[in-house]
């Protein structure tokens, strides 16, 4: 074979492999939807079929009518937590990142390293001490206990600081000439010109908050404080498993994130690319 033919064969093989891998990656999504719309008998049937014999849209209503699992309540909790965490993190971390990057202060370097140092300690390792603190505040099984401790993300602060360090100084200088102080410069000039980084960090934080499991499991001890993930988990570990309800609940739980992905995919990609890899 000559080189040209080799290249063409190589390309065909690559595309074939990509398609095969893509199908493999899509199988779990397919199973989620298939089982979510199948009857329990279809899910557990030993004669497995690609399509369920009939589609059971009633699984959805059955799920919300089931009084043993407070699914609607847990959806609401997750939505409240994800939105509050996202907004709170964006506000606190962006202010801190801006201060660190743009307000000259003798000890700014030390403060930055004090914040950066906490990135080294994985959040999951601190769940025992954090639980101790939150329970001594009396915040167990409250939304406060689920939201407030997660608002101070060193990761988000780090990204904002890196971004604002590279923010064009001319824009701020113009604001300074117009007599704006730091506060108004920040809100009127810097924030409106930094929408991409806010969108990127916001989507990453939102996804993290929606999907987080260990902390809500530890803090949400009462059913009233369950998040979607904890409710799903309690389904799988309970004695009586209603598989059709379980799968339709899981399918519903990923819808908000699929929407976020649809609308913000390029922000997520941009944010991921920017998250410290560029230095």
């Amino acid at each position: 074979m000559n080189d040209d033919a080799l290249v063409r064969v190589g390309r065909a093989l690559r595309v074939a492999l990509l398609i095969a891998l893509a199908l493999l990656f899509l199988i779990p999504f397919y199973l989620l939807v298939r089982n979510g719309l199948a009857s329990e008998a279809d899910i557990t049937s030993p004669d497995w079929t690609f399509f369920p014999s009939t589609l059971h849209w009633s699984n959805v209503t059955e799920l919300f009518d089931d009084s043993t699992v407070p699914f609607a309540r847990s959806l609401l909790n997750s939505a409240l937590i994800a939105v509050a965490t996202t907004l709170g993190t964006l506000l606190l971390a962006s202010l801190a990142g801006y201060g660190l990057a743009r307000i000259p202060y003798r000890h700014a370097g030390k403060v930055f390293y004090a914040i950066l140092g906490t990135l080294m300690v994985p959040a999951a390792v601190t769940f025992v001490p954090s639980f101790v603190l939150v329970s001594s505040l009396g915040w167990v099984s409250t939304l406060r206990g689920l939201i407030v401790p997660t608002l101070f993300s060193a990761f988000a602060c780090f990204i904002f600081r890196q971004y604002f360090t590279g923010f064009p100084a001319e824009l701020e200088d113009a604001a300074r000439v117009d007599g704006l102080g730091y506060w108004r410069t920040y809100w009127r000039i810097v924030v409106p010109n930094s929408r991409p980084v806010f969108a990127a960090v916001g989507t990453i934080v939102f996804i993290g908050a929606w999907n987080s499991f260990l902390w809500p499991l530890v803090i949400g001890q009462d059913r009233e404080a369950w998040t979607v993930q904890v409710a799903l988990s309690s389904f799988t570990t309970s004695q009586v498993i209603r598989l059709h309800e379980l799968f339709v609940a899981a399918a519903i739980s990923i819808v908000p994130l699929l929407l976020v992905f649809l609308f913000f995919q390029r922000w997520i990609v941009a944010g991921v690319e920017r998250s410290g890899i560029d230095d």
Partner: protein
Amino acid sequence: MLGEGGAGRRAFGTQNRTLWFWVFVGPFLLGLGVFTYVPLGWSVYLSFFDAHNTVTPSDFVGFGNYTEMLGNKAFTDSLWTFLLFSLFIVPTTFVLSLALALMVNRTRGAQAFFRSVFFLPAACSYVVAALIWKMSLFNGVRFGLANTVLGWFGADQTAWLSTTHPPWYWLVVVTVRLWLQAGFYMVLFLAGLQRISPRLYEAAAVDGARPGWQVLRHITLPQLRTTSVAVVLLLVINAFQAFDEFYNLLSDARGYPPYARPPLVYLYYTALGQGQNLGLGSAGAVILALIIAVVTVGQARWFSLGNKEG
């Protein structure tokens, strides 16, 4: 600075940078102090006490909790579990996500499509993924997809999650994480690939390097160095945090099996399970934090040593 001239009017002026610095950074730093530094300190303090069912320590036990934890086979086993897990998952995810990135990067037409498909699992939580794996893909009875497909070839049914010899449960645990993570790291590699100057490839072609392995080894991989270091670091830190998929795949109404407990799962049951032994759990958390710190610092050192040559 703050009391300069007692001019209250000027206190909030642009000139007073120190004050403004703290207005911007203060709230964040305060929260970080309360919800990260205080728990850490408290945890260290509590680890020297006997604290059952309570957050107020009673009896000082010195290093008792530490020796008990390190002498406990279940805990040291959990550390080995983690070690095995990361020794496997870190290189595997690395190779898979790099391979995906290389293939997707060279695809012209449907690049966005393939990128989305591989990235999409990142929208799933470990809870949802574990559910699909446990209840549908790798279910022990015949309605599981893996057993159905293997059954077409005449293979026996396997109880994937409860077979420890050979350790089939590893296959389940590892594939969940690969599926969820690979696309995320692929995006990091794609970003790195797109920053490589086309001139380097042109120069390599002029020098007679054959496209394929030679170019990959001498141009692409060295150029991806920074990205690779970051990916490995993130993979190791994430492996240390393994909890969600282990907990959701293996625990059920009857409890958690004695095998496949990574450190966090073990700590969870120690500190918040039936005994609620917070002193002991704190000692375990401190040990784990120290190990992670040593690994992370060691890794950073090692990589920056290598950097000087490149």
